[in-house]
């Protein structure tokens, strides 16, 4: 555990010390705020719960971007600069490397998610917000962030180029998002599988409206674990090359 936290802390301080990390967060926050302003805070009358659902809808998309953008370089940069040697020759396991890197990037994603809190606060000031709705929506964002960061960590372990890592991670998350569309064009049992895999329609949408299901925790937990396991397998395989 000490090694995991050590790696995470180093990476997190690298994000806090780099302009790029702040730039990514700033751009995503501005974009979320603008869309939120346009859809939920305009002149038309909206119930607070509807405005909150809009916020979580946009928040979901930008949390996906934050997760991928902030994790796409975690291994790719180390592979390109050859600093990965310090991890491979240290008395730590591949799991510790993966979890440390994932946790470091996820820590910065949490900063982004935390900074979005002013938007539900504005709704609360101007209307009535149910605590359970906020909690459920934020759980959705937290789990989405964890999954996207894990997918970005996995795709980053595949390549020396962080941009390639970002594209691969983005495509993987994109496939999960559009699997509802595939589900509508296939027959059972395939359609059932694609429906279950659908990231937004099956899992996040309800959470953004204040409803929690056990299956959502299982879904996010298992996919996050699978992505991290993939990164661990890739790193292990690099020792055998």
């Amino acid at each position, binding site marked *: 555990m000490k090694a995991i936290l050590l790696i995470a802390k180093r990476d997190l301080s690298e994000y806090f010390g780099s302009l790029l990390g702040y730039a990514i967060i700033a751009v995503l926050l501005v974009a979320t705020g603008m869309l939120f302003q346009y859809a939920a805070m305009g002149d038309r009358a909206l119930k607070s719960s509807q405005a909150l659902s809009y916020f979580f809808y946009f928040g979901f998309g930008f949390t996906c971007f934050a997760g991928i953008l902030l994790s796409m370089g975690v291994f790719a940069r180390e592979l390109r600069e*050859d600093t990965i040697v310090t991890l491979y020759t240290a008395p730590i396991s591949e799991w510790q490397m993966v979890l440390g890197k994932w946790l470091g990037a996820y820590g910065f994603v949490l900063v982004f998610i935390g900074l979005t809190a002013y938007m539900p606060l504005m709704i609360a000031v101007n209307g009535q917000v149910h605590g359970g709705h906020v909690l459920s929506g934020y759980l959705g964002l937290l789990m989405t962030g964890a999954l996207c960061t894990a997918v970005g960590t996995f795709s980053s372990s595949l390549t020396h180029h962080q941009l390639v890592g970002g594209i691969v991670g983005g495509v993987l998350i994109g496939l999960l998002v559009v699997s509802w569309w595939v589900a509508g064009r296939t027959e059972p049992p395939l359609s059932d599988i694609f429906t279950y895999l659908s990231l937004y329609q099956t899992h996040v949408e309800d959470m953004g409206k204040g409803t929690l299901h056990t299956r959502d925790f299982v879904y996010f937990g298992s996919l996050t674990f699978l992505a991290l396991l993939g990164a661990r397998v890739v790193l292990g395989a690099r020792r055998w090359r």
Partner: protein
Amino acid sequence: MIEVNALTKYYGMTRAIYDLSFTIEKGRIAGFLGLNGAGKSTALKILAGYLLPTSGSVRVAGTDLVAQPDAMRSRIGYLPEKPPLYDEMTVDGYLKYLGKLRGMDAATLARRVPEVIEQTALQGKGRQRIGTLSLGFRKRVGIAQAIVHDPDLLILDEPISGLDPVQIVEMRNLVRSLGGKHTILISSHILTEVEETCDQLLVLDDGELKAQGTEAELLARFSHSLNFDLTVQGDPEAAAEVIAATPLVTEVRTGRFTDGYATFGLSLSKDEPAELVAALVAAGVGVHRLEPARGALENAFLSMTGRGGAA
């Protein structure tokens, strides 16, 4: 101390190293000698615990690489050809981070980091960002990270590559100062560097170990050169007369005279220089030094690797 047995590594279908076996005693400085692509870096990466071998075993102080990888890695310090540095970190922060990653506690590190900084002549650089350091200092930081956890085995891959002549001398002195306490394995394709620094040589070619031993042993086995450099003290003309009168000497190639010493490059008809020394001493000429001519190791290397004949 280090026991390597039948070590083999394939990258896919490509053979990188094959059937390497050698032993290095504690406290010695051993040099991996080989041309680019000979398999030196691959062998070192395996010894450092970075890569796993296709077959064979590596033991450091009795600890097996494959069976106890974490225990072995904590006994090893490794500096690759390109030092693995995080440019945005300070030297102090970087050494503390890697020390902790290798299991050191904060109290030990607080004592050890200043020691290592002094040992590697990095005083005054502790709070400087690594990205602002020159190549020579970056190499020093690379060595500092490799020794911060006080490893039994220190592995240095081409430690002088890219350094200027002054930095090369400083690096050589630093490596020598680390010998004795640490067992050191250095790789280089620069023969004079290995010759200057190492107690034991391992000659690698096309992934196979072609020869091993001390420089003198390898020269005795593989150098068929009968060229010697003779340095005498006193009257150079008297020395030249004795040399000219000795039938053993077939050619006098050069003559240099500095500060009361005269140096001659000689070719002998047979490998019995004692006969010449006896003649010089009998004539009252002080023999300061008689050694194989420079380039002897190069010739021996070519002979070991089957790339050329003797000079």
